[in-house]
């Protein structure tokens, strides 16, 4: 199990098993009148068969990419992780802190930590971004954005 595709296919095998299990809890119906479980169960079976096929194909193939190569690519994983944390934080804080504050935090954190910028630039863009987007979406387009504890 050294190749990247073997791991992705293995994950898909587990996923197909989950789909088959979940679908088995639904009425299957019959071939004359298929029930709600009919299509998902067959999709699970086909997915499982294809994933096993992918494992087999990758195992037999010589040129398949090793997982090690994928992990050792010149990738800035830190940036990806930072963006994801900022996105989850935005989703978590939106209803609590309101749109303006959450947007300011999101923009400031992305500008400061992903491609580090001077604080002056960070604060300037984050203030402008949260203010202008509030004006466009809340005031002009009249979209209902969450207010949060400060009422903005």
């Amino acid at each position, binding site marked *: 199990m050294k190749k990247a595709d073997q791991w*992705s296919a293995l994950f898909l095998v587990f996923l197909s098993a989950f789909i088959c299990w979940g679908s088995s809890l639904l009425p299957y119906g019959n071939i004359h009148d298929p029930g709600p479980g009919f299509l998902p169960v067959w999709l699970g079976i086909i997915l499982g068969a294809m994933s096993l096929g992918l494992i087999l194909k990758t195992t037999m193939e010589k040129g398949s990419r090793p997982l090690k190569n994928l992990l050792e690519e010149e990738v800035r994983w830190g940036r990806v992780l930072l963006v994801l944390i900022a996105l989850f934080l935005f989703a978590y804080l939106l209803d609590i802190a309101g749109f303006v504050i959450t947007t300011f935090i999101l923009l400031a954190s992305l500008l400061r930590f992903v*491609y580090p910028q001077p604080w002056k630039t960070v604060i300037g863009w984050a203030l402008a*971004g949260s203010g202008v987007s509030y004006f466009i979406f809340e005031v002009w387009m009249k979209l209902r954005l969450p207010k949060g504890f400060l009422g903005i």
Partner: protein
Amino acid sequence: MEIFEHIYYGFGVVLQPANLVFAFLGAVAGTLVGVLPGLGPTAAMSMLLPVTFGMSPTGALIMLAGIYYGAQYGGSTTSILVNIPGEAASVVTCLDGYQMARQGRAGPALGIAAFSSFIAGTIGVLGLSFLAPPLVDAALTFGPPEYFALMCLGLTILTFLAHGSMLKALIMAILGLFVGTIGIDPVEGAQRFTFERPELMEGIGLVPIAMGMFGISEILLNIEKKIKINIFEAKLKGFLPNLQDWRNSLGAILRGTGIGFFLGILPGGGAVISSFASYAIEKRVSKHPEKFGSGVIEGVAAPEAANNAAAQGAFIPMMTLGIPSNVVMALLLGALMIHGITPGPLLMSQHPDIFWGLVTSMYLGNAMLLILNLPLIPLWVKLLKVPYHILFPFILLFCLIGVYTINNNVFDIYLMILFGIFGYVARKFDFESAPFILAVVLGPMMEKALRQSLIMSKGHFSIFATRPISGVIWGIAILLLVLPLFINVSRRAKIVRVDDRK
């Protein structure tokens, strides 16, 4: 002739001030998206989908269509000046366009790209106007088995033309079909994979999936590596191609238009494939094929014409059969369905304002783009200089606001992020997003058609083979599925492997 009455009626719709503004906004946004590397038309359309919810269905479709064909125009600018295609369909334009720019002929290259796009787009729209009505008549005879077969063919062609492994593309299509089944079952009302979450009862919306898989994952892929853009600094002047340029390009434009329009109609085809195909054919028919790649104007004219004609041709199956031929059309279909309108053969008779309004908006849109593109090229070049580290937080913010405002629910944001992670990981492992999205959109329709077909035939699968149209369609689909086992597909894969590399 009746067709001219329809076109006249369409102009009446599109010339309403609001629709004119939507066509203009769509064309500008599309050009902008096409110009900016790292943001394709699919991502932009998914980001702008929520904005269209408050519009009339006609206005929404006019604007989204404008983004699509506008992006085909804008993509050429970055290909020629920066050697970075703004979107996938402009990859081929880099080959000769950038070389022309290096030889001091950036102006004529940009000019011929705009003119050939305009000519092809206009011919494409004419083709759409004339071909759609007879196709609608044919489609009215289709029943659930034919629809099921057609949708399966669409997915098969898309996976057959996949950038890499066909098996992986098929896996993504199956996963997409599964995601399409989540929610309340349309026939019996049973909950499927909802985990008792009320937000999942109506299924997972197209917008969080599309924004996640195209918007968020594209940004994650862009920030993980360093993007460096070197803009060609030569002074831009003389956008009008000279007489010799026209002589060299005219045949290429017409051939590119024909190829693009035809490939655009085919399910699974589209602007990317047609631009590659037209370049290859142009090289074959040329008297000096060895010069291709060194800055010949035909090498810019043909693919630019093809990708625009394909963009128009792709509307035919979506508007007449209700079947999207590519992922962009799937998004447009999703937009229409959000407005409670089901595209298909009845669209033309039940909603002529939408059908003919859209068709004629493309005539106007193409003219607007020609007027826009040439004088605004220096502005687009300036925009290219906005650093990505300033741009990407705002693209993310736009995605977040867009997805939140659909239902005013944070759950949709979480879904978008999760699909963003899924799309990112899938692309790292060389699994494509396009078959997944197309399958998500087609899934519920396919299930309904399958179940109706089986009820019609009392459980006999032979209904798909015994009905002539369905039988032929299945024959083609099976042939495409089996074909890769017998031929070496590596060359094909190499030609089309462009989109996810962006």
